[in-house]
């Protein structure tokens, strides 16, 4: 537990924190605004070593030279980065999951998955991130016996600096893109996973991200390393309460798979999407990338994106090792005034590398849904294979679906397949369901869930059920 006195002591220790933080510190908030002092403040709050602070400052200085990207098929007013607060923490750090804010538990209960029960039933290890800090990590001891490190990113910086130094920024460099660079400067917490050689992680690892505080951005940083022959399945879930202001979420996730290693990364993203008129909601600008470093390594991304006002996200795979495999399975739903520009990049570098992309876009209400994907085959990638299937379904006539596929092949032995379809939800299908007694709303959700089945099949079992329910909840009010 951080007391006001402790914070005052901290501020004393480092002169940089004197800029009117007193009252705000009492609340464990950083004041709105972004400057080098804020970056230093975050670093001190997290008790970081100097090398970490220097990295942050380098990223911040670089960010100042960059421009916000405008190429995505999304439309939003300019973000005032000085209005956001870059750090918020609950005053009292919960000792266990029992003390986690009831709001989190309530949200999950509404979706039919009480956090506690699942932890017991499915044996899922959970890292819960509340605004800027990790509040609890379960099953740590059990995992440690296998040499697995599963902790908050902040702890990893302190306890495993060599691993963090070696891998952080090795997949997404600090200068990568506007939002990733911002993240590199002000990231707060997230999860860190290291699976030692030959170890198959015996349980799902998962992180729940919760934005709670007002006018606060969440900048999480996640790093997962699977050493030679290691296997891990990781899942993240996200929620945020209803707020009238747009809140920024700019995360960076890096995955590294060594020789014969497998990483399966699943996301269920249900940030607050804003109201039906587009007021409020989360701006979800995320950089996720995995490197298949070793031969026969495999990285699989599965995402179910139902929340956020705006989603800007392209989980990608760099297929360096020979015979490495990259997969991307995505369901993106936009309802109300939501906008999504999402897809993937598959970069084939090694020989016999394979990638699969299955994207399902659902647009309802005034939602705009764009798939944007790049398949790139470099000269050395002999016999590279890609299969892309990109389907869109429209519900109503006010929404839109868009597809932007980019293909660059520099090796004549590559085989790249792309299939795409767009359809309106069938009147005949709806009538068939309603004639059997199923209400129109349930019929839409049944048909849409069927449409997404190929992707849901990739989710860990218990989360496939969650995804089904989430989709139904998100579609509420889309017909009628």
């Amino acid at each position, binding site marked *: 537990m951080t007391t006001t006195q402790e914070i005052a002591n901290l501020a004393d220790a480092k002169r940089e924190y004197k800029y009117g933080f007193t009252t705000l510190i009492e609340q464990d908030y950083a004041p709105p605004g972004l400057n080098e002092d804020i970056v230093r403040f975050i670093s001190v709050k997290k008790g970081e070593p100097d090398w970490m602070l220097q990295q942050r400052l380098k990223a911040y200085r670089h960010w100042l030279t960059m421009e916000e990207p405008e190429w995505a098929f999304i439309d939003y007013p300019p973000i005032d980065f000085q209005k956001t607060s870059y750090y918020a923490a609950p005053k009292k750090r919960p000792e266990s999951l029992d003390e986690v804010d009831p709001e989190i538990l309530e949200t999950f209960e509404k979706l039919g998955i009480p956090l506690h029960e699942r932890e017991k039933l499915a044996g899922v290890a959970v890292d819960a991130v509340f605004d800027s800090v990790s509040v609890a990590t379960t099953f740590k001891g059990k995992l440690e016996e296998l040499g697995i490190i599963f902790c908050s990113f902040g702890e990893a910086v302190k306890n495993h600096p060599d691993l963090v130094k070696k891998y952080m920024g090795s997949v997404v460099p600090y200068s990568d893109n506007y939002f990733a660079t911002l993240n590199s400067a002000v990231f707060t917490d997230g999860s860190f996973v290291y699976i030692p050689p030959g170890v198959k992680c015996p349980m799902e690892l998962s992180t729940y991200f919760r934005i709670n505080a007002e006018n606060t951005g969440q900048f999480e940083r996640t790093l997962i390393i699977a050493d030679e022959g290691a296997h891990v399945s990781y899942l993240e879930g996200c929620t945020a309460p209803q707020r009238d202001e747009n809140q920024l979420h700019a995360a960076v996730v890096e995955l590294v798979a060594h020789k014969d290693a497998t990483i399966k990364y699943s996301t269920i993203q249900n940030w607050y999407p804003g109201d039906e008129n587009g007021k409020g909601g989360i701006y979800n600008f995320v950089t996720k990338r995995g490197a298949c470093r070793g031969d026969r390594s495999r990285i699989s991304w599965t995402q179910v994106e139902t929340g956020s006002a705006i989603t800007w996200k392209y989980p990608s795979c760099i297929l360096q090792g020979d015979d490495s495999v990259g997969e991307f399975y995505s369901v993106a739903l936009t309802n109300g005034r939501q906008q999504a520009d999402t897809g993937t990049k598959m970069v084939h570098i090694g020989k016999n590398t394979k990638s699969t992309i299955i994207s399902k876009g659902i647009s309802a209400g005034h939602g705009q849904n764009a798939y944007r994907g790049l398949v790139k085959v470099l000269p050395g990638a002999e016999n590279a294979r890609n299969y892309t299937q990109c389907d869109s379904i429209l519900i109503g006539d006010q929404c839109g679906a868009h597809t932007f596929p980019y293909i660059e092949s520099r090796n004549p032995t590559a085989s790249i397949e792309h299939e795409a379809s767009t359809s309106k939800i*069938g*009147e*005949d*299908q709806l*009538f*068939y*369901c*309603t*004639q*059997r*007694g*199923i*209400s*129109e709303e*349930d*019929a839409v959700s*049944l*048909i849409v*869930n*069927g*449409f*997404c*089945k*190929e992707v849901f099949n990739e989710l860990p079992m218990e989360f496939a059920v969650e995804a089904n329910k989430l989709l139904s909840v998100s579609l509420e009010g889309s017909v009628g």
Partner: protein
Amino acid sequence: MTTPLIEIKNLHASVDGQEILKGLDLTINAGEVHSIMGPNGSGKSTLANVLAGKEDYEVTDGSVVFHGKDLLDMDASERACEGLFLAFQYPVEIPGVSGMQFLRAAINAKREHHGLEELDAINVMKLFREKAKLVELDLDMLKRSVNEGFSGGEKKRNEIFQMAVLEPTFSVLDETDSGLDIDALRIVADGVNTMRDPERAFLVITHYQRLLNYIVPDFVHVLVDGRIVHSGGKELALELEDKGYAWVDDEAPAAAAK
């Protein structure tokens, strides 16, 4: 005196502004099997869709009373929950939704409508097993997506299977015989015949007399140009087969004048 199960009076309906049904009257009592025959374009399928509540069909005049309630006031799912079933002429595919999932949703929607508890997975399976025998349906088919990759015969058998599971009081069979070989026809007819009882009624819509050899109707009606122009017993079907629809067409003005 028996109250009719369904009473259709002076029904007028249009599609895209074009009037198809032009004053149709039909009363069906519980326990009866009626057949509607007629040439292509006479309005047979329109009648089926209007009764089931398809949105593109606009009722411009007339009334339909079903179980003493105003049928036209209900949306499609309410009609189904109240006991109306349509065996489709062209059942659609629903990719990714298994037959089991689909039917379970239908069963429980109907149960909820009647204030009953959900049927659990075990009892649903029991019901499926029992009804599958009726139409010689392989239960593995229910694990596949609804109608996806089904042959014509499989689709129709699946319709009758759904009917058997949902136990409607009034079933409309829209050209269920089209595209069926003689074995499939017999299986489908057997399914319907097993379900015949004093509480239920059927409306069998067909272009050909053949099906009526297997599902023997109590009444046969001839639909021409949106009206019933001729009604009779099962022998009327044979007469039609013999003389063709041109015969009733000639009779039509006289029938309408009556």
